[in-house]
């Protein structure tokens, strides 16, 4: 395959995740509403929200600094860079060699760092409460994610998502350590995306807020960028899970419009399935008290460590 078509596929992939992310949020909200016997907003509502927010004035707190204004764009850029590294319908694209899974985790960490710092910028109590809780959750979720990365990397012999996906397609099978990694990864994904049971994306109740509390001072186009980044992050985690554990339909080298259409359809199906599952999960379980969150994340960390240990003891790569 020529360089040009690879680059074309790369740009398609980058723009695809960007375009698809709000729809994923919308679809999840819709399914959740239907499960609760509400009609719910249309699936395309997040796009309208984004457009409306972009058109509004920004109301800045008087004592906010340049950091507060730059943060939304930086967070968006870091999240998008991470999302662009994940293969969605095709592996081995040029940009995917710029970083591996560890780099993706670290890019999301950079986005979170900037988010937490920006939340402290106005000097309000809600920004602080959100940042402090987010950092506590991250201090457990990030090591758990690294352990998941270790497990997967030891199985596949690589931390590069493209190589991992190709390996899983060819030689992947049922393994105890991979099952542990999957459970751990799902817990981490829920925590990182501020979903139930860690955080409720649709509440502004002060005792429960984590992620939303950090965004309270944002308005207008800044809020739009942050909402878009949050949607992108959700799609990113779903793409990672799909790419590692359910890589069916990924193109690993073949060409042709038909192959691309099939793999694209497979990817969309996976995303829809994930959104239905997520909505179902959020409907059947309740949110946890903040200080019970470490227990669940500790389980994820232990599962990741056990998976890694099993592979270390059995020889690994």
């Amino acid at each position, binding site marked *: 395959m020529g360089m040009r078509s690879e680059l074309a596929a790369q740009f398609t992939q980058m723009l695809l995740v960007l375009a698809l992310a709000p729809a994923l949020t919308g679809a999840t909200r819709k399914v959740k509403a239907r499960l609760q016997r509400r009609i719910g907003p249309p699936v395309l509502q997040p796009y309208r929200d984004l457009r409306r927010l972009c058109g509004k004035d920004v*109301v800045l707190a008087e004592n906010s600094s340049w950091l507060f204004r730059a943060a939304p764009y930086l967070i968006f850029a870091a999240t998008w860079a991470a999302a662009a590294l994940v293969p969605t319908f095709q592996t081995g694209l040029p940009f995917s060699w*710029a*970083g591996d899974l*560890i*780099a993706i985790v670290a890019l999301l960490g950079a986005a979170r760092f900037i988010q*937490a*710092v920006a939340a402290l910028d106005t*000097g309000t109590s809600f920004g602080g409460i959100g940042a402090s809780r987010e950092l506590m959750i991250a201090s457990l979720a990030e090591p758990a994610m690294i352990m998941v990365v270790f497990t997967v990397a030891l199985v596949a012999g690589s931390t590069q998502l493209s190589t991992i996906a190709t390996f899983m397609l060819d030689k992947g099978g049922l393994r105890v350590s991979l099952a542990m990694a999957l459970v751990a990864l799902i817990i981490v994904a829920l925590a990182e995306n501020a979903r139930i049971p860690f955080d409720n994306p649709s509440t502004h109740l002060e005792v429960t807020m984590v992620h939303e509390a950090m965004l*309270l001072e944002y308005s207008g186009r800044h809020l739009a960028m942050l909402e878009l980044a949050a949607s992108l992050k959700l799609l990113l985690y779903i793409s990672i899970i799909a790419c590692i554990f359910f890589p069916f339909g990924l193109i690993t080298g073949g060409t042709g419009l038909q192959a691309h259409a099939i793999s694209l359809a497979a990817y969309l199906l996976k995303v829809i399935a994930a959104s239905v599952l997520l909505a179902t999960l959020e409907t059947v379980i309740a949110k946890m008290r903040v200080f019970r969150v*470490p227990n669940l994340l500790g389980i994820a960390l232990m599962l990741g460590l056990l998976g890694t240990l099993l592979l270390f003891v059995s020889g690994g790569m």
Partner: protein
Amino acid sequence: MPMVLACITGLLVVSVLSLALLRHRTATPLVYGACLVISLALCAAALLSIGQASSQAVLPLGLPWLGAHFRLDPLACAFLAIVNFGAASASLYALGYGRHEKEPGRVLPFYPAFLAAMNLVVVADDAYSFLFTWEFMSLTSWALVMTRHRTAKTGYAGFVYLIMASFGTFALLFAFGLLAGAHGDYAFDAIRAHHLASGMAGLALLLAVVGAGSKAGLVPLHVWLPLAHPAAPSHVSALMSGVMTKVAIYAFIRIAFDLMGDPSWWWSLPALVLGGTTAALGVLYALMETDLKRVLAYSTIENVGIIFIAAGLALAFKASGLAGAAALALTAALFHALNHMLFKSTLFFGAGAVIVATGEQDIERLGGLIHRMPLSSGAFLAASMAISALPPFNGFASEWLLFHSILVSPQLPQMGLKLLVPAVGVLLALAAALAAACFVRAFGATYLGRPRTAAAAQAREADRWSLAAMLICATLCLLAGLFPGFVIDWLQPAVTALVTGHMPPQAGIPWLSIVPVSASRSSYNGLLLFSFMAASAGLAAVVVHRFASRTVRKAPFWDCGYPRPGILAQYSATSLAQPIRRVFGAITFAAHEQVEMPPPGDLRQARLRRFLRDPVWEFMYAPVASAVGTSATVLNRVQFLTIRRYLSLVFITLVILLVVLALWG
């Protein structure tokens, strides 16, 4: 080699000359200017000569039958570059910062001597010169710690530092004694040729870990570090944290990889276990602290732990003959040592600027400085992101290499290591995540929000020299993260000399990516990621501003509809750490909180008190200190006896010794 020795002599001469200049107003700029020039020359020499064959020199100093041996080999060059770049940036910073010193006479003579001592340790090539210069380094740095000797805290810090430094040197003395053997020669060449029995080697290694680790700040030998480093003036703090701990790490690497010969696998255990504990505990300590410079000192402890983990892994790989993996881990160690020098210097410079501007170093009494000190806050932010191992900065590149060396360790044949290394990996990942929390807290409480005191509200930006030093170091943090391949390639001669293997040459890899083992396994391209992020952030901003809205309205902050104007209503650093203190501190520090509520009708304020215990101090040092105290009280009586009793004491001692001698024979 002659040029390096001449430069070091130059530093010593500057130190002596500064005594004559003390009364003069130009003393400060002259001394720091001279140090800057000499350090830059040394740094350039080290940068250029790392790939060359090692050169030696013997001077007729020290022990008459030994002489003073000096040697410049690739490892020494790598550390010389680290030491002297740190020294140069600290001198540049001090050109501005040093003017605020009230008693320059307490800093100026010792500062060049301290720099010379650190250089001499790195080039020393026999045990006598090594230990002599090591002790010289301890004493000059002690003198610098005691600069502000009138505060009680400084006196205590100096006392603890002196005890721990002597203890460390003592351990190193025995380590070299064992390495040289009973009749051995103390030149390093002779020590290399001398092979130890397995048990003796283990003991020597343990002593080296204790000796070098106490200077580097390995838990549980770290207690002096968070006391002494912050007590010194800020440019000296930067040197002690960023550079002197590296000299200690150099000592460990020199002994374990070079002098001791072929390692056994279990040599890696102390470094791995202590390194992992140090990394996680160091950053937890930092999160509990509210003194800005002490936060930075504790974070130094964390980073020393990370470097020791990497060095321990390299030892394990070397022992099992995995040369490539050993090269990867050792490169990670050296790279992280370099990176830590860069960002920790920036952070201490920033802290120094804050202290000069406000007179406060408690982060609970700062805040809002980003408006008053925009440039230095930018440098501090960049260094904070770098030390939190976030791309595209340099801290991520070195920790990324370290994660990859953990990923190749299933190849190790020993079951013990297979079980240990993943656990160390968890500690490392925890340390990285907690470091991000720690620096969000440190940066946020210091520079963001609203000023908590009048002093913070009146702060002024640092002078030009200080700013230049901060910005240069922060820029280098970014550059080393964008082009890590050049640094890795530059370090390879030192790595190859110690573990025989080397990493794949990074210069030939397209697009300036870096590759730890092979391209199919993993690659990282900081430059590409950075360009993508910069482009997409810029593009997003342009598109939104062009096609949507660009108006901004200023208003009071919203705070979910309940804006409380009081300054203390904003989150404090202590409350920022509260969730983490509850999750991690409950076990490690027995942290708990207590609410004291006055009875109804009583108008006193309610109080929330928090309790923390330092387990290391309580279980290791406090018993020893109280034992020494008790025995001193008991023995004190001996001081006031009559001469008759003293004579009888002498007589009894003599008899006991004779009996012992008789029984011995």
